[in-house]
C-alpha cells in the first residue's frame, strides 16, 4: 500500500489539471516530480526530525562519550560505537572537538573511528527515508553493510596502531571540568517534552528544507530533461569502472543526504543501477574536501588517508554488492 498515493494525485492534479501542462512532456515530468518529491520528503523530514530530537535528548554527545569510555564491552565496543554513530548526528565542524573529546576520555582510536566512519554513512536518512524511496531490502542491506564497514574499518585502524599518526599536541590540552549534559537536573513534563521535541525537530527541518528543495530541483531536472539514452550509454552498462568513477566524482563534494536522495531517485529512474547511484550518494555525503581540511588539523596525512581510504573502499564494496544483487 503506497501511502504517498494522495501526494502523487495532488502533484498530478496541480501539474496537469491546474497548469495544464501535457503529461510526458519535459516540463510536465519535471514539475510533477518536483511537487511530489518536495511534499513527500518534506513530510518524511518532519516526522523523522521529531524522532531524532527525541533521540538526541536522551543521547547527547557527552553521554555517548561516557558510554563508550566507561565500559569495556568485550570487543563489542566497535559495534556499539558504530550504532551510536548512527543515531547521533553532528555537523562536520564538530568532527575535531568530538574526535579529541573521545580520545581524551580514553576511548581507543579504532573505536572512535568506527563511530566517525558510521556516522555519515548510516544516518536517519538511510534508515527512514530509504524505505520510502527504495524499499526495505535495499535499506537493510545498505545499513548493515555500512555498520560492518565501520566496525571492520575501526578494527583495522586499531590493529595498525595508527595512534602514532594523531597530532598528539592537541591531546595534551588540559580540558576544563567535563561539560555536563545539558538537561541534567531539569525535569520536563510530558507535555513540555512533546512540544520541545516538536520545536527542535522543526528547527532542523527548517534548516534542511532549502537544501532539500534544491536537491529535488536537480532531481526533477534530471527526471524531466535527461534522456534515457545518455544514461544508458555511460552509466547503466554495469561496467566495472562506473563504481570507482562515481565514488571519486562524489568524493570532493558534500551535500546533505536528504538533498541527494531525490537526485538518486531520478538517476535510478533513468536506468542508473541502484548500487552505482547509492555509491555516488554515499561518497558525496561522507567524504569531502572541507572535511579533509578540518581533520588535517588533528591527523597526520597517513591517518587521514587511512580513514578516507577505508571509507572509499567500503563505499565501492557496497556498490558492487548492491549491483550484483539488484
Amino acid at each position, binding site marked *: 500500500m503506497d501511502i504517498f498515493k494522495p501526494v502523487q494525485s495532488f502533484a498530478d492534479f496541480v501539474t496537469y489539471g491546474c497548469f495544464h501542462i501535457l503529461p510526458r512532456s519535459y516540463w510536465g515530468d519535471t514539475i510533477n516530480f518536483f511537487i511530489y518529491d518536495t511534499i513527500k520528503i518534506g513530510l518524511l523530514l518532519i516526522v523523522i526530525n521529531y524522532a531524532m530530537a527525541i533521540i538526541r535528548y536522551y543521547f547527547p554527545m*557527552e553521554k555517548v562519550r561516557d558510554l563508550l569510555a566507561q565500559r569495556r564491552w568485550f570487543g563489542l565496543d566497535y559495534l556499539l560505537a558504530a550504532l551510536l554513530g548512527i543515531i547521533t548526528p553532528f555537523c562536520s565542524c*564538530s568532527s*575535531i572537538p*568530538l574526535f579529541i*573529546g573521545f580520545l*581524551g576520555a580514553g576511548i581507543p582510536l579504532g573505536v572512535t573511528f568506527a563511530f566517525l566512519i558510521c556516522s555519515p554513512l548510516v544516518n536517519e536518512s538511510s534508515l527512514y527515508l530509504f524505505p520510502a524511496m527504495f524499499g526495505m531490502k535495499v535499506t537493510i542491506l545498505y545499513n548493515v553493510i555500512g555498520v560492518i564497514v565501520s566496525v571492520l574499518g575501526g578494527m583495522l585502524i586499531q590493529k595498525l596502531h595508527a595512534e602514532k599518526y594523531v597530532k598528539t599536541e592537541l591531546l595534551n590540552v588540559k580540558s576544563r571540568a567535563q561539560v555536563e549534559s*545539558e538537561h541534567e537536573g531539569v525535569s520536563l513534563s510530558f507535555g513540555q517534552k512533546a512540544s520541545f521535541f516538536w520545536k527542535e525537530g522543526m528547527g532542523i527541518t527548517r534548516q534542511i528544507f532549502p537544501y532539500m528543495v534544491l536537491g529535488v530541483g536537480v532531481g526533477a531536472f534530471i527526471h524531466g530533461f535527461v534522456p534515457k539514452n545518455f544514461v544508458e550509454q555511460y552509466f547503466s552498462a554495469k561496467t566495472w569502472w562506473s563504481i570507482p568513477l562515481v565514488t571519486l566524482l562524489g568524493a570532493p563534494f558534500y551535500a546533505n543526504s536528504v538533498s541527494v536522495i531525490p537526485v538518486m531517485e531520478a538517476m535510478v529512474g533513468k536506468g542508473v543501477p541502484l548500487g552505482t547511484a547509492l555509491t555516488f550518494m554515499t561518497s558525496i555525503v561522507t567524504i569531502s574536501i572541507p572535511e579533509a581540511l578540518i581533520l588535517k588539523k*588533528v591527523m597526520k596525512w597517513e591517518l587521514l588517508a587511512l580513514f578516507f581510504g577505508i571509507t572509499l573502499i567500503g563505499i565501492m564494496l557496497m556498490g558492487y554488492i548492491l549491483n550484483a544483487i539488484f
Partner: protein
Amino acid sequence: MKIEILGTGCSKCKQLTVNAEAAVKELNLSAEIVKISDLDKIISYGVMTTPALAVNGTVVSSGKLLNKDEIKKILVK
C-alpha cells in the same frame, strides 16, 4: 559579562554570534562577545560539539544553534 562563541567558522557559529549580539542588545546588557575559533581553546573548554556558547567561562550550551530568545533566557539566569 563575557560571552564566548566557540566554533571553527562554519555558518552555524556565525549565526550563533549574530543571535547572541541581538540577544545582548535586546536585554541592554554590557557584555563582551568574543568569537573563539582556535581549536586548542575550544578543546580546552571540554566541548565536543560546536557551535557552543560560554558565559563568563562556563559552557552553557554545546552543539546547538540557539536562537535569540533562547540566548536571552540563558543570559537572564
